[in-house]
């Protein structure tokens, strides 16, 4: 009941308003026909005003009519009725859009335009987009008005603002209105100050540029604009700082993924595995093969291929790791330098094997749709694939720590690391644990390969690029300490990204390497050294 009353009330209130609007629209339509019938300065002026009135009226047919005028397809009859010629030569009523079958070419005359009318049409078409039914178009139109900041768009903006429901578009329209207002000659100082505040709140590089270009403002407004520019600059700096941190975190998590496996094999077992990068590379090729397989046999699951690739890469790389440990590395315990050489040889063999099987060229690994694209957070651009890699790194690290801490295998691993003889005396099969630990480290490297396949070229040389960085991370963080590895990776990533804008990518890398070499000189055992007598061995 209440609802019905409310509805009625609304109708009653709305009626006079819509009545008044209809009158304005009638006048506008009539004015448009002027130049079709008589050619004089007054008739063109009438058309120009008609265009502006129609554009400002918010009439649903306005865009079509002005568009037709723009294309020279608007015709008028002797009785001032307007028609639009269709591509097939027939006519429709301009006012209603209904077909007008009885109208022939002889009955109507083209509505003529001159330059003044043309510029009015262009402005009108621009602001008419503000009333488009879909939000992205309106947003685009608002942005366009902001860029042109033409005071003529003010009435249309005001009308559009009343109707706008989307908050994002609304904000952009208000900013456009502020810009137009500041550009107009007759706005009050209060309005101008409010406009400056709006633009200051926007706080991006465009707002800064516009405020910087202002001239001829009252002193109070100019001062407000100047402080706004300073505030925006500070804000922009903050955003770019945050953006660098984000890039750094993303690079750091890539390094972390690559180094996490190494932290197990090198950090926990003390085995220098120069073939670690090849485990990463194998993980990336597993991703490639999983995608190929799904593409051929299970196209429905293709978007989820990465989810299948992760465990498979872990298993494949892990199994290869166990084989390597049993066949090669176990003969070399206690001889780190020989281990280094032998595993280097192994890495050459693995690279060449992959090259023989898959060819030397890069292989295409697709990024699934849910991982591509980016999102905007304030002044930050966050790309999805980087976000997922950060997330993935966190999950892998947490899983690894949990495995070492809470599983029986993890317990035995730690026991063997701390005191091999004692562990053996307690009945732990140390050779088997060695193999599994090495397999775990290699498997983690394989999972890193799945992530790296999303951001790097999948080629036989993929692992080579990460091996030195990974060792640096592990050594920097302190051997045998996953937290140290994490902190090391993130620090290196962020330092690298902060240096990049200053020094360029390659030089930044060199500087980081040199800094690391200096750091290791000062703290030869990394940030978090193992304490106690174990250090000497």
């Amino acid at each position, binding site marked *: 009941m209440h609802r019905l009353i409310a509805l009625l009330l609304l109708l009653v209130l709305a009626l006079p308003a819509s009545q008044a609007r209809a009158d304005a629209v009638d006048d506008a339509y009539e004015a448009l026909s002027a130049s079709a019938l008589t050619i004089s300065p007054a008739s063109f002026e009438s058309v120009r005003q008609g265009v502006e009135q129609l554009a400002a009226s918010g009439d649903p047919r306005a865009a079509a009519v002005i568009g037709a005028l723009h294309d020279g397809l608007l015709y008028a009859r002797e009785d001032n009725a307007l028609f639009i010629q269709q591509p097939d030569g027939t006519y429709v009523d301009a006012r209603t859009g209904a077909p007008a079958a009885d109208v022939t070419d002889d009955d109507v005359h083209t509505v003529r335009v001159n330059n003044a009318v043309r510029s009015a049409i262009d402005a009108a078409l621009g602001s008419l987009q503000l009333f488009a039914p879909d939000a992205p178009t309106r947003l685009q139109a608002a942005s366009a008005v902001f860029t042109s900041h033409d005071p003529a768009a003010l009435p249309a903006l005001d009308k559009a603002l009343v109707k706008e429901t989307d908050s994002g578009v609304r904000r952009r329209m208000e900013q456009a209105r502020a810009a137009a207002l500041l550009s107009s000659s007759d706005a009050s100082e209060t309005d101008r100050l409010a406009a400056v505040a709006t633009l200051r709140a926007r706080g991006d590089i465009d707002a800064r540029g516009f405020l910087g270009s202002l001239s001829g403002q009252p002193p109070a407004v100019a001062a407000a604009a100047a402080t706004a520019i300073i505030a925006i600059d500070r804000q922009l700096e903050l955003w770019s700082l945050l953006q660098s941190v984000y890039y750094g975190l993303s690079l750091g998590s890539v390094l972390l993924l690559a180094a996490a496996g190494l932290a197990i094999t090198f950090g926990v077992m003390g085995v*220098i595995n120069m073939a670690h990068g090849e485990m990463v590379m194998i993980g990336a090729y597993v991703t490639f093969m999983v995608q190929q397989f799904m593409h051929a046999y299970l196209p429905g699951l293709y978007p989820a291929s990465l989810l299948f690739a992760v465990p498979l890469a872990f298993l494949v790389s892990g199994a290869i790791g166990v084989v390597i440990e049993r066949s*090669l590395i*176990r*003969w*070399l*315990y*206690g*001889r*780190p*330098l*020989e*281990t*280094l*050489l*032998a595993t*280097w*040889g*192994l*890495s*050459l*063999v*693995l*690279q*060449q*094997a992959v090259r*023989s099987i898959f060819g030397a060229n890069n292989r295409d690994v697709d990024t699934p749709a849910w991982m591509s694209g980016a999102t905007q957070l304030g002044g930050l651009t966050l790309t999805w694939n980087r976000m997922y890699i950060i997330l993935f790194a966190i999950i892998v690290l947490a899983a690894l720590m949990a495995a070492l801490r809470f599983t029986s295998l993890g317990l035995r691993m730690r026991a063997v690391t701390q005191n*091999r*003889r004692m562990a*053996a005396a307690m009945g732990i099969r*140390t*050779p088997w644990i060695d193999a599994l630990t090495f397999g775990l480290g290699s498997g983690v490297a394989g999972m890193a390969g799945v992530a790296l396949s999303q951001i790097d070229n999948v080629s036989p040389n993929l692992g080579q690029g990460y091996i*030195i960085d990974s*060792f*640096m991370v592990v*050594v920097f963080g302190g051997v045998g300490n996953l937290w140290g590895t994490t902190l090391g990776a993130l620090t290196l990533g962020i330092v690298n990204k902060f240096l990049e804008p200053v020094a360029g990518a*390659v*030089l930044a*890398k*060199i500087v980081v*390497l*040199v800094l*690391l*070499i*200096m750091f*290791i*000189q*000062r703290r*030869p055992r990394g940030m978090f050294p193992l304490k106690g007598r174990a250090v*000497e061995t």
Partner: protein
Amino acid sequence: MTLERSTYLTLLLVLGGALALAVLNQATDAGSALHVPTYVIALAGKYLCFAMLALAVDLVWGFAGILSLGHAAFFALGGYAMGMYLMRQIGTRGVYGNAMLPDFMVFLGWHELPWYWHGFEWFGFALLMVVLVPGVLALVFGYLAFRSRVTGVYLSIMTQALTYALLLAFFRNDMGFGGNNGLTDFKDILGFNVQADFTRSALLVVSALFLCGQFLLARFVVQSRFGKVLIAVRDTESRTRFLGYRPESYKLVVWVLSAVMAGIGGALYVPQVGIINPSEFSPANSIEAVIWVAVGGRGTLVGAILGAVLVNFGKTWFTGALPELWLYALGALFIFVTLFLPRGVMGLFARRRKLAPEPEVETPATAAAHEVTG
């Protein structure tokens, strides 16, 4: 100083072989059955330069226990110093005909010679730099590393990072060393055409002389009192320290000496192969040099020379005959030598004569025994 048979044999083979090749190249006609083609001369010269690098690696690895994975950096720096001299000798014969600037600088639109290129028009200055640049870098790096007692694998990884950083740096065009393409298109060395047969033969003999000189010097160093302390440092650094020696000083001296030896090898390498580019800095090259030493026999000096020549001969043959198998062979060599031939080819002779100071090594059998008991 007495010389044992292996030393005599090495000197004789290196010098005699180089001289014989040079004479056969120069004194016979191209059609003669005894004629040695020039490409063989160039190859032999290359092997001898690699042998110098191997000798340098053996000196630090075999006698001081420092496994350097970045020795090719010193080799390449020596090579770049020589390359810069050779670039300046081109003069107006470059593509752009600029008397002052090498072609790549003209190409990059530079108008002045960078300050660090000055002086390289004099051969003596270039020679000084061949010694100084690797030497000073090794001195700074070694001083910092040994003073803070960075040892073992950590040191190896840092040397690798060093050469990697240099690799990235030399790839940059802004560095003024020709970027990606490096230095090439050499014309003259001391007024002789580097392409000419005579120059190549002469360079081969000079390389042989330098190799023999380095070999004798290294031998003298390791057999002196200094060398004995060095071996003690290699075997148990902390015990040597407690006996009152300063291991870092001993290591530093031999480290710098080794770097200079590698640099001289690089300087002789460049005119013989006709190019030096940043890929010489790649960590893989340094590790390959280590495997030459391992193949020949670590800690024997003679073995380093033997290993370098053998492996590189194998590489030349493989890359010619079965190019796609070369990396398999090299990789298998790494694994085979470390597992089954821990004292290298020289270890095969050592059974008969006590020749090599034996680094403590574990064979698979003893390692397995360890594992069972451990």
